[in-house]
């Protein structure tokens, strides 16, 4: 059941993220990307198989095997992924700010849908 | 772990949990922001404090050594809770349609009105 819960949780996050990703405003897209990054982080994490109460911090007298500890590798990967996703979000959001300021629209295409693109 | 100590811990847990719940009930039940503000910010803080004490006792009883460091959590909550409560109150004030503030006392007539 844990597996199903985790998988479906990831699914919900993905669906929400994808929906926002397909919106027309930069901020919404960034929100969508944030949700998607949660989903992917959980997905990678899940690939190590979910277990309760076995953090991969070695304890004395407990043999270092997968029976006693959760798979540490996906956790390390997720850490990297979280950091990278944050960095990307930061850049995206700043670009969105600049695009909105320079183009006077926060539409992802840099102009409001009805008006034609301003000439350079 | 002695039974008495265990009962004490259970009691602490019960009290803590009670206050945590009270805070959330207040959050849900009350009808106005400033009323709701009181429950979570304080009752929950106390509840968490009780649970923390229980935790210290629990870990101490299990022989992890007296883990007084949980106290730090309470300490930090005591520093930070006023800041957040203060700011949330200020934020709600700034949104209030009509100023709910009573006037300051007469001797303060000279003081300028609030920055807003």
């Amino acid at each position, binding site marked *: 059941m844990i597996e199903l819960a985790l998988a479906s949780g990831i699914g919900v996050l993905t*669906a929400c993220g*994808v929906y926002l990703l397909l*919106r027309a*405003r930069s*901020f919404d897209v960034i929100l969508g990307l944030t949700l998607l990054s949660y989903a992917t*982080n959980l997905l990678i994490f899940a690939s190590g198989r979910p277990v309760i109460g076995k953090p991969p911090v*070695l304890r004395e007298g407990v043999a270092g095997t997968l029976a006693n500890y959760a798979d540490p590798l996906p956790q390390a990967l997720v850490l990297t992924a979280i950091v990278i996703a944050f960095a990307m979000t930061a850049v995206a959001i700043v670009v969105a700010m600049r695009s909105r300021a320079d183009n006077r629209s926060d539409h992802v295409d840099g102009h409001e849908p009805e008006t034609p693109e301003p000439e350079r | 772990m002695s039974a008495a100590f265990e009962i004490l811990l259970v009691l602490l847990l019960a009290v803590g949990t009670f206050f945590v719940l009270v805070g959330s009930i207040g959050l849900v039940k009350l009808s106005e922001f400033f009323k709701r503000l009181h429950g979570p910010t304080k009752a929950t803080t106390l509840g968490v404090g009780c649970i923390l004490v229980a935790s210290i006792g629990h870990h101490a009883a299990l022989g992890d050594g007296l883990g007084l460091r949980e106290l730090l959590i309470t300490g930090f909550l005591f520093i930070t809770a006023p800041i957040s409560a203060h700011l949330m109150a200020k934020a709600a004030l700034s949104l209030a349609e009509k100023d709910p503030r009573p006037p300051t006392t007469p001797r303060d007539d000279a003081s300028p009105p609030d920055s807003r």
Partner: protein
Amino acid sequence: MLELLLALPFVLALVVAVLRDVPRAVTAWLAASAPLLGLVVLAWLTPAVMAGEIPQVSYDWIPQAGLLFDLRLDGLAWMFAGLILGIGVLIVMYARYYLSSNDCAPRFFAYLLLFMGAMLGMVLAGNLLLLVVFWELTSISSFLLIGYWTQRKDAREGARMALAITGGGGLALLGGVLLLGQITGSFQLDVVLASGDAIRAHPLYAPMLGLVLLGIFSKSAQFPLHFWLPQAMAAPTPVSAYLHSATMVKAGVFLLARLHPALAGTDLFFYTVSCVGAATLLVGAWNAIFQHDLKGLLAYSTISHLGLITLLFGLSTPMAVVAGVFHILNHAVFKASLFMAAGIIDHEAGTRDMRRLGGLRRLMPFTSALAIIASLAMAGIPLLNGFLSKEMFFAEALEISGHDAMRLGLSLVAFLAGVFGVAYSLRFVHDTFFGDGPRAVDREIHEPPRWMKIPVEILVVICLAVGIVPAWTIAPVLATAARGVLGNALPAYSLSVWHGFNLPLLMSIGSMVFGVALYFGLRRLFNLHAIIRRSLGHRLFRVNVKALLMLAWRFTYAIANGSLQRYLLLMVLATLVLAAAPFAAGLLSGTSGASPLQGSAGGQPMPALGWLLWLVMAVAAIATVAMHRQRLLALIMIGAVGLAVSLVFVFLSAPDLALTQLLVEMVTIALMLLALNYLPKTSPHGRSALRRWRDIAIAAAAGLGVTTLVYAVITRPTQTIAGELLARSLPEAWGSNVVNVILVDFRGFDTLGEITVFGIAGLVVHALLRRTRLTVDETIPGGPMALPMPAQLSHLLFPLALAVSVYLFLRGHNQPGGGFIAGLVLAIPLLLQYVIQGSAYVQQRLGFDYARCIGVGLLAAVGTGVASMLFDVPFLTSGHADPHLPLIGEMPLASALGFDVGVYLVVFGGAMLILSMMGAVKSKDASPAQGNAA
């Protein structure tokens, strides 16, 4: 020797192009020296070629692909080289006087020599791929030549059209040659020519032939690809003279002759080539009659004559081949002289329009005489060279064996072509040199400079000499050239002027009579001058190019319409398709059971608390979507999602992840709030509900797909290498927090990349926001808000938080924590200072150069890794020491700590650079007094 011959034009092209500031005469002489010296070299080689030898040189270029730099000079190549060089000399001489002072002579001569070199390379090539190389070079250089007068629209268009047709043909030729190479196993001409039978028997013969012929026909302007040639008349006349007599268009028929032994001899070849040739012959000749431009008339006549040559090669009998080769020579000579004459007329009269010309024989008698002789040669009048090859052609047309209908048809075509040829030649002569006129000419017309006439004189003399005494003049040349095509099995033929009264002669006479009748008849019936015939092919081409451009434009911008939504949608759809495809394939093939969606492992029970957490996460995520148009609310919701996700990490045994997620969540919220000040507070409604529902469906599909995949994967037993990581972490990497050990040791390189990314993000934000002013969405009146009480408390908090940061940093290797987490724990309290105290306040007192902090951090991380290289172990190999310090005792130190310092600094620097830059952005309407911070 052959290398020298080939190199001369290229080298001198370079010389001419480089020496731009020398007098024009010097340039011309330099240019002329290429063909002149080339002729000397060729003369040197002539005895050997005449004797039947084939001088050959060969260098490797891409031997593994069969592309050799192989040059060979057989009779055919020799003849063509002679034509190219000989006429080349005359053209250079002529152009020296033709070009006006405005024209850039070095450029012209450089192009011309380049073109000459390409032509030479093509005829000398002993390797078919090399031939293609030079073939396309002629396309490029002719493009440059035709477009030489770049300011003229017709020149640019003509050049583009020529390039499109001949360059495209070249691509087809490349295909054909590659097939030919696959068929014969070699691109060496010797081999290919020797394996004619194998080629004709090969199943790929037909497509190969089609491609090769497409190349040939495009280049030699065969119907229906002929229309580029009249358009190319926009080139300066010397170029036209060169391209249309001895070179460009002859490249096609050269190749036809060249590959004749390998390709000819099938019905396919016979019918295709002769029919195309015949059609071209007629179309060209008929159209020539109706041209008003001298050069236009000559261009169509060229088309017609090339049709004739093609037809001859199509007939494929040895005699026809000899006639074809002969006509190549003859046509080159008279057509070059005619073009030059036309150029002289244009030069002197300022127009080439026959409607305005006339009576020139009085004004420039000598030139007129030359031009008339040359045009009579074009018409095939006896005692001129054109007559001889035309006779041969008539004879061959009448003697086609085995194809009765074809014989009749072709004979008729031959006759008609003769008639038309006489007619247009007559028009050329009559309309230009006789009758009234010239009309509306703005200058005095007189004979041209001496040197402009000499080339024409030489060519006309050749016309006469060949026409009158062929056996003494052209016979050895023709024999040598024909041997290049046919080998030593030359047919018996006679080059005498008089063969007695026979059918061909009758046909000649008939065509002359009918031709004269046709011309004058037409003149009587119609006002020839009023007929304006536009080339259908040309128009079609233009329409097609326009349509192509339009189509390209429509297509391109209908697909790449600049909508990010579409791009992302396509990516999502592509993913869905590719991820679903294997299952769909399994379903279709009935083997879906092969990949069950539930594995054999898993099935752990789920505590109710877990579901509760699930609920928090899912509800908050859905609420984010539901409230996304009110951005602040969405942000609060996403904060809840982040909290729930970190709780998931808590429950599923990932303390480090939980910590990191919590901290990143806070920074993310900070980031978004900072940005929200410069973005609208709400999102407008989407354009249509339909679209919303479509997106909901796609999102649901994506969610369902991910759920399915993840569930299928994580219910399968794992076979990870992670067990070994757990086992080797403590003994070999001296850390008991395996996640952290992976981060700084096992996969330290990932972390190095990760902090690099983080640092770059800081730099990018810095670059994008430094000294920018952005419009805020809404300004709340009043100055910056003072928060004295929170300020006090945060002052109290600050050093304590720093201590926690140090703590988390130091213990990370063994317990949850580490450089990244510690870096953020350092950054967030500082951020809080920015929020509570304001940017200016903090920046003045704690003004770090965060960018440098990133630099130092990177240096530290890389430096730690490099240190291990000094011990002759790989980058990032960890070391370990237990120094005993006084007072403190054992102090376990892992080198990974040094690496983690780098992480710590980069993360702190990066986060603060991002946040402080975003905080330091000034709104456009901010007063200058506020704007002097940072």
